[in-house]
């Protein structure tokens, strides 16, 4: 077995092993360290001799490393005694408890005591089973940065005494929202990279979808979990049409809709149906907007009135300047650029999106449609200066140049 085989087993087993070990030791940081030691050992020994049961080997080895670590910690002697008395120390995972333990692991990894960057790194590593190197590559950051984030995160969790359990009923919904937002952050970075020379990072978007599917399987009664999954599926459905052969972005209106991934659209619509059970939340509403696009044969034939309504609803449940801006775009399509410009100018007057390239991008587009070309050009050039994604920037500059 080679490195890729070890990584494959780890991808499947990491969450179960770290969850079971955390339950077993009561110490998330220790469990994670022990699990990582087991993977490191597998990378050395499996190429020489493959175990008959790789998953069992990883679990048993990680468990041994955890016990070694506990033995070394003399200060924790009482916990070791507790461990020795714990009836759940056989190497089999308790199937009735593992689902809750994996959920608990997600709640710990996305705990509000952690910085947003740490939540992302920890979730991808312990739940997603990615290596530090894979996370660093995905986010275009140095490996030591990811390592430092994970080390610091484990210390923060220990220092804050974060318990390994499902949040109490009263906090459950809010904490689940925290988990969903981590998955969403990973997804959006994959769907529109904030830096670098590529617009899309499908591999990162894929990790988010995988996490969202896991959540949907473990929390089937939570509509927003399905809403987020629907949003991810419907957005990735457009990926094949979103970039040209040279990697440059293609705007929605110019996309060849025949290139959309219709299997992903179907999966997204199925998830959206589950999300609609009790009225749509913020993710469900965004998914419904994506669904309106996905089921339209062209920009002209899109139900823009419906999209305006959905943005209005989204603005009520999750008010944000970005939602306002998107509503303006939809209004421009439904009722014309003049009304949309008024919304954008209001946003600028209240300075609610300072420094964002999105405001001048939309304003420039609206001015161009109103025939106010010199102003439009100035806005698009401003947008290009503010935009960090090289691919998007060149599109903005090209558009500005056409306005003479």
């Amino acid at each position, binding site marked *: 077995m080679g490195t890729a085989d070890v990584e494959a087993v780890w991808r*499947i087993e990491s969450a179960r092993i770290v969850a079971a070990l955390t339950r077993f030791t009561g110490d998330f940081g220790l469990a994670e360290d022990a699990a990582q030691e087991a993977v490191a050992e597998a990378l050395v020994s499996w190429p020489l001799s493959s175990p008959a049961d790789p998953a069992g080997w990883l679990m048993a080895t990680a468990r041994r490393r955890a016990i070694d670590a506990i033995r070394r910690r003399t200060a924790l002697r009482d916990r070791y005694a507790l461990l020795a008395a714990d009836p759940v120390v056989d190497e089999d995972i308790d199937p009735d408890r593992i689902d809750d333990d994996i959920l608990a692991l997600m709640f710990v990894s996305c705990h509000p005591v952690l910085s947003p960057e740490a939540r992302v790194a920890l979730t991808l590593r312990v739940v997603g089973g990615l290596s530090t190197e894979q996370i660093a590559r995905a986010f275009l950051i140095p490996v030591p940065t990811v390592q430092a984030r994970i080390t610091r995160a484990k210390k923060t969790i220990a220092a804050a005494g974060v318990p390994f359990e499902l949040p109490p009923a009263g906090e459950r919904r809010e904490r689940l929202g925290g988990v969903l937002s981590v998955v969403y952050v990973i997804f959006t970075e994959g769907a529109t990279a904030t830096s670098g020379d590529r617009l899309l990072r499908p*591999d990162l978007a*894929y990790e988010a979808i*995988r996490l969202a599917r896991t959540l949907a399987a473990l929390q089937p009664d939570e509509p927003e979990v399905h809403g987020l999954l629907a949003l991810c599926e419907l957005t990735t459905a457009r990926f*094949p049409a979103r970039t040209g052969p040279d990697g440059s972005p293609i705007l929605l209106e110019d996309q*060849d809709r025949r290139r*959309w991934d219709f299997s992903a659209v179907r*999966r997204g619509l199925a998830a959206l149906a589950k999300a609609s059970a009790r009225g749509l939340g913020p993710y469900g509403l965004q998914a419904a907007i994506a669904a309106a696009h996905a089921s339209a044969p062209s920009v002209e034939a899109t139900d823009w009135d419906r999209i305006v309504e959905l943005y209005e609803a989204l603005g009520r449940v999750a008010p944000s300047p970005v939602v306002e801006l998107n509503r303006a775009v939809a209004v421009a399509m439904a009722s014309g650029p003049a009304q949309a410009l008024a919304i954008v100018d209001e946003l600028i007057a209240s300075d609610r999106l300072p420094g964002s390239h999105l405001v001048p991008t939309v304003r420039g587009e609206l001015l161009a449609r109103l025939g106010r070309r010199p102003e439009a050009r100035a806005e698009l050039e401003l947008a290009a200066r503010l935009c960090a994604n090289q691919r998007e920037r060149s599109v903005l500059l090209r558009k500005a140049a056409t306005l003479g």
Partner: protein
Amino acid sequence: MPKYMLIMRGTDESNAAMMANIDEMMATTRQFIEDMFKAGVHVAAEGLDDAGQGVVVDFSGEVPVVTDGPYGETKELFGGFFLLDVASKEEAVEWAKRVPSAPGSKIEIRRVPGEDEVPQDNGKFVKEGALREGNGQI
């Protein structure tokens, strides 16, 4: 993003062994599918009915010829598939090793290219797209 299909290839013997333990097989298969759902990798799965009930349309001649029963050699029969959304071929292989299977059966693993791998000027694709448009699927 590509996906991977696990194609079940049973033999008469392995199919008979499976049928002899059908209740246990169904239970373990259900558990296996649940595990794939919880891992976020399950996209689709179907099992096929007896190959003897199948029909073959053969395009060797000028007009398609229809015959009953399985096609060609029946030593290994295509009995069903799992479609997985995994990160690598190795991961597909690891899942394949966990499929509840009777001795003698085989699983073939094939890569399913993603939509983004379809060339942008593919005539067949354009035709399919036009068809979908005609059906109101877009």
